[in-house]
């Protein structure tokens, strides 16, 4: 048997961060167990944001519940309303017009762009490189204005409705033209950013090897989305979604799973999104954007999975006389918490925040499936 090291010989410190902390945008709590400034164990506790949105959704009419899912998250709001509508559409067998599917894909990819740009800006700010952060924020503003043009609001656009998209979100010639021009602007800006990023040897040496997550461990932790693809595993749910059948795009992977891989991964994936939007603009079919010709009936539990900027999003609910019953939502950050904890281990304590940020956390989405015990 191994001889036990006396407890007093180990100099272990616990560093709690949170719940409101300068480096973290969202309230959550991290406990870092530190030995000689190296993190030995990390523990993330969520639950501060609990608003009980699934509870609120129970018993609401399905249209109202759909628009409520948008308020789960301010970053991937369109993904939530898209998947929620998709859940009901799959259950009720509603046929969606081709044009509506294309507009949904355009909105989804625009949202992926703005989410990835936010990630790049936040990541560059966490490594204290403000110039890059500002550059990406400026690029992001182009996307935000496009979203405001299509949906009428900068954050909550409410694009999808049951049977298609809102008529307000239909794209006429002028809007398509502007979309096309802005994609060129965006690609030029992003190329410039990626080249500068790769050429900046100081920044690259700062982020290489920090927070490495091996592919085996990532699969064991059931990590999803870009965080998984940055470890070298090519899994993207968009390849199986029928909405993306007409589009030609690559699944980007990066080898290492460290902060550098994650940052590059998002930048390269943004190019693919631009490619998809360009294909959608070129081939968008004519016709109506919403199919109102469907009937409501009671269904058993319907499920739907889609790929959102952060990974796989799961919605499920049953319908009973037009109302939502037994609602479950599972967001990608829930699966990625394990990756955040693992990435911190073995790194310097000052890099802990960077290791958490590299997995693109969104605890606002995640805080639902818990029960708060009040004392």
């Amino acid at each position, binding site marked *: 048997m191994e001889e036990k090291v006396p407890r007093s010989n180990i100099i272990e410190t616990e560093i709690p961060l949170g719940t409101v902390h300068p480096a973290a945008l969202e309230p959550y709590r991290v406990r870092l167990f530190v030995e000689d400034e190296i993190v030995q164990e990390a523990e993330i506790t969520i639950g501060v944001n*609990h*608003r*009980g949105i699934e509870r609120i959704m129970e018993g609401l009419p399905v249209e109202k519940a759909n628009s409520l899912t948008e*308020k789960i998250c301010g970053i991937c709001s369109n993904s939530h309303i898209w998947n929620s509508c998709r859940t009901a559409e799959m259950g009720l067998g509603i046929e969606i017009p081709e044009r509506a599917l294309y507009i949904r894909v355009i909105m989804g990819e625009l949202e992926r762009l703005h989410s990835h740009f936010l990630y790049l800006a936040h990541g560059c700010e966490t490594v204290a490189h403000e110039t890059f*952060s500002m550059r990406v*924020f400026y690029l992001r503003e182009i996307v935000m204005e496009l979203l405001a043009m299509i949906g009428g609001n900068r*954050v909550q656009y409410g694009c999808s409705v049951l049977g298609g998209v809102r008529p307000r979100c239909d794209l006429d010639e002028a809007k398509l033209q502007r979309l096309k021009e802005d994609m060129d602007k965006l690609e030029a800006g992003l190329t410039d950013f990626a080249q500068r990023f790769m050429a900046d040897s100081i920044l690259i040496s700062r982020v290489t090897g920090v927070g490495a997550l091996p592919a085996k461990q990532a699969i064991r932790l059931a990590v999803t989305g870009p965080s998984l693809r940055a470890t070298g595993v090519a899994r993207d749910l968009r390849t199986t979604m029928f909405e993306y059948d007409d589009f030609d795009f690559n699944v980007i992977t990066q080898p290492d799973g460290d902060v550098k891989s994650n940052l590059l991964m998002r930048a390269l994936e943004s190019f693919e999104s631009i490619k998809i939007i360009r294909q959608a603009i070129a081939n968008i079919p004519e016709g109506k954007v919403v199919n109102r010709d469907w009937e409501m009936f009671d269904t058993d539990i319907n499920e739907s999975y889609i790929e959102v900027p952060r990974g796989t999003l799961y919605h499920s609910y049953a319908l009973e006389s037009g109302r939502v019953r037994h609602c479950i939502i599972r967001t990608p950050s829930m699966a990625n918490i394990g990756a955040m904890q693992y990435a911190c281990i073995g790194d310097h304590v000052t890099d802990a925040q960077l290791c958490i940020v590299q997995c693109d956390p969104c605890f606002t989405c995640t805080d639902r499936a818990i029960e708060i015990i009040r004392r």
Partner: protein
Amino acid sequence: MGIKSFSRARAIHIMLVYTGGCNGCDIEIVNTVLSPRFDAEQYKVFLTWNPREADVLVVTGPVTHLNRKPLEAIYEAIPDPKLVVAAGSCALMGGVYKNIHGDIPSEEIEGPVENIIPVAAKVPGCAVRPQDVLAGVVSLLPTLLDAD
């Protein structure tokens, strides 16, 4: 204008506290102050994460149970004179999370922010527009500068 107000007018510090909304307002406000498009720093308004440095506290989100105490602690830590801006419909009235049941408010939410700390300016919107946030903060400046 005293020398205190003179110097304070050149460094207004905003602190952002996030109390459980949907992240939308939060990012828009950070975007307002930091990003080069809106760039509040050109009006000498800076973002800080240190309550002891802050002049204006911007609160977003309906206040959830677990966020009530941190919010009160942060408000206590800010030195006088201090003013609070409630930004977004959640901070103003609890938003969809509180009022969706009609007359019966949700039991998860402690908000609106007014119930917990005094609010000086209210910025409506879901999510707030950056221009409105700027206007809200700027409307507080005379009160802040005449405070002593």
